[in-house]
């Protein structure tokens, strides 16, 4: 732990619905768009399998995040878990991966908001609207986390209710559907398509682990994080199943695979004005909510990296009035703008997925290490203990590696670039922190010394005696 603890100044007022709003707000956009590339690869059956396999992985990841977040209660989320339980190299890699994952997503969301605004008002230009959206959301997050996440709750709830109402109206026969589309687009690329579709499965849930990143700002993190995170995960599972069904019975599979706004298109095909309006509004709101949540999470990751001197400690300042990590929040703006106008947005989004998958390997691994180092369950160390651990953590790692391997179909160079980037970060920060000799101060967290630390200490002392004897 660092000695520089401005974190004490972060406001602690968030409740479970804020945690839900942060997690679902970031992710729901993936159900409004993006997930449908699973259909292009593996048809309706491939998409259904990708939804279930990715869903299983994310249920486990969210349980790991609930346990780790409610235990550590730190703003860095996956970065802090890796720092405490794995090591500085992995911590830096995960911290940067989380930052890149969310900031790339924010850039993509802001551009989509600008395109939607332009489609409604053709006289508007995409560039200034994108800038305006990024600047406005940065300002909201600068002013306070409660306002930012309350806004997210309202936006996300409207977008989710739109899906639910559309689904039940369709399921109860209010809308004319085409069940023949299910068979026609079942498995266009054969069995290999089932496997290839997995690479886009994470779109249904990408980023839900970020809900735990507001743990340090929760009033009662040991209740808010597990409850908000699990409620969020169930919401996304429900939304994913509804979305897949609606789109699969209203849009032919060949068109669904390449659709930009599949849920909105499904509503258009229903021909019912109220659903067209609701899903159009939902598409817009969910992009704003996602970008808003991404500003919150990416700034917390940067703030945590800065607090421990992985990057300049200048960013770890907390605003004296608004209690936000305001420099880290403001710094998201130029980076997001840079991503947005790089001209390689599809590559940026793929890099975001690679970064996310790296986290999905290291989060369960951090939990396994946490269970090994601190096996006892006490109110202080582990107020919430997830079920079936560490067995399901190993299973999540296996699924994440399997999905990563499927990225070789079409995204080989993104994958190699990701590995090289995070590999360099790993070795650079491992070396840097080996020389700084920074160690975790468990007593500062009110925790006991980890299992095995006494043996290690005695070993060091013995070595010291032997060397001094020489």
């Amino acid at each position, binding site marked *: 732990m660092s000695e520089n603890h401005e974190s004490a100044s972060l406001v602690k007022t968030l409740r479970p619905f804020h945690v839900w709003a942060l997690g679902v707000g970031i992710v729901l956009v993936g159900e409004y768009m993006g997930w449908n590339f699973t259909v292009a690869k593996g048809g*309706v*059956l491939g998409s*259904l*399998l990708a939804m*279930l*396999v990715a*869903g*299983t992985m994310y*249920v*486990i990841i969210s*349980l790991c995040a*609930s346990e780790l977040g409610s235990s550590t209660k730190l703003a860095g989320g996956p970065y802090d878990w890796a720092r405490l339980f794995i090591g500085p190299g992995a911590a830096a890699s995960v911290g940067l991966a989380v930052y890149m994952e969310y900031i790339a997503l924010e850039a993509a969301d802001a551009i989509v908001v600008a395109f939607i605004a332009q489609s409604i008002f053709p006289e508007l230009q995409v560039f200034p609207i994108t800038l305006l959206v990024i600047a406005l959301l940065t300002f909201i997050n600068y002013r306070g986390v409660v306002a930012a996440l309350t806004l997210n709750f309202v936006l996300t709830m409207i977008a989710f209710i739109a899906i639910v109402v559309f*689904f039940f109206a369709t*399921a109860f026969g209010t809308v004319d559907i085409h*069940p023949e589309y*299910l*068979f026609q687009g*079942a*498995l266009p690329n054969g*069995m290999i398509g*089932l496997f290839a579709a997995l690479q886009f499965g994470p779109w249904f849930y990408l980023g839900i682990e970020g809900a735990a990143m507001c743990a340090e700002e929760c009033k*009662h993190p*040991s*209740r808010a994080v*597990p*409850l908000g995170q*699990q*409620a969020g*995960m*169930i*919401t996304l*599972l*429900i939304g994913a*199943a*509804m979305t*897949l*069904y609606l789109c*699969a*019975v209203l849009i032919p599979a060949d068109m669904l695979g390449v659709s930009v706004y599949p849920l909105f298109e499904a509503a258009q095909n229903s021909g019912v004005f109220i659903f067209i309006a609701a899903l159009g509004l939902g598409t817009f709101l969910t992009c704003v909510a996602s970008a808003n949540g991404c500003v919150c999470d990416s700034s917390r990751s940067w703030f945590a990296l800065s607090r421990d001197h992985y990057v300049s400690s200048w960013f770890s300042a907390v605003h004296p009035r608004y209690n936000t990590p305001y420099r880290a929040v403001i710094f998201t703006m130029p980076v997001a703008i840079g991503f947005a106008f790089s001209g390689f947005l599809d590559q940026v989004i793929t890099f975001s997925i690679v970064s996310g998958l790296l986290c999905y390997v290291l989060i369960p691994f951090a939990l396994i290490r946490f269970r090994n180092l601190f096996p006892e369950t006490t*109110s*202080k160390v582990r*107020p*919430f*203990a*997830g*079920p*079936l651990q560490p067995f*399901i953590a190993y299973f999540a790692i296996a699924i994440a590696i399997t999905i990563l391997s499927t990225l070789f179909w079409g995204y080989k160079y993104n994958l190699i670039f990701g590995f090289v980037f995070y590999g360099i970060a790993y070795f650079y920060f491992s070396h840097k922190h080996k020389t700084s000799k920074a160690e975790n101060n468990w007593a500062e967290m009110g925790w006991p010394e980890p299992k095995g630390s006494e043996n290690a200490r005695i070993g060091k002392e013995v070595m010291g005696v032997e060397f001094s004897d020489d």
Partner: protein
Amino acid sequence: MLSSVTINPEMEKKYHSKLNGDSVLVVGMLALLIGVELFVIGKIVGATWEIASNFYYLYVIFFGLIVVVETIGCLRVRDSIKKHMFEFTYYD
């Protein structure tokens, strides 16, 4: 921070009522999840049975994993809240 609170009957009643609220929310969402997933998997696999019959067990396995792990996870969340609600004064 461990708090040393005095638990009076009024507080106990309020806390159990709030805990029931949390429980009802989660149980309701779990019921909706199981209903919706069964409906969607049933519709899609049913309509494509000629193809899906070769590997339908994959859907059964992963649907089962999601429901079982999430249900046990939610029960653990409830147990955790019940265990610590007075200690950490969750509902004040």
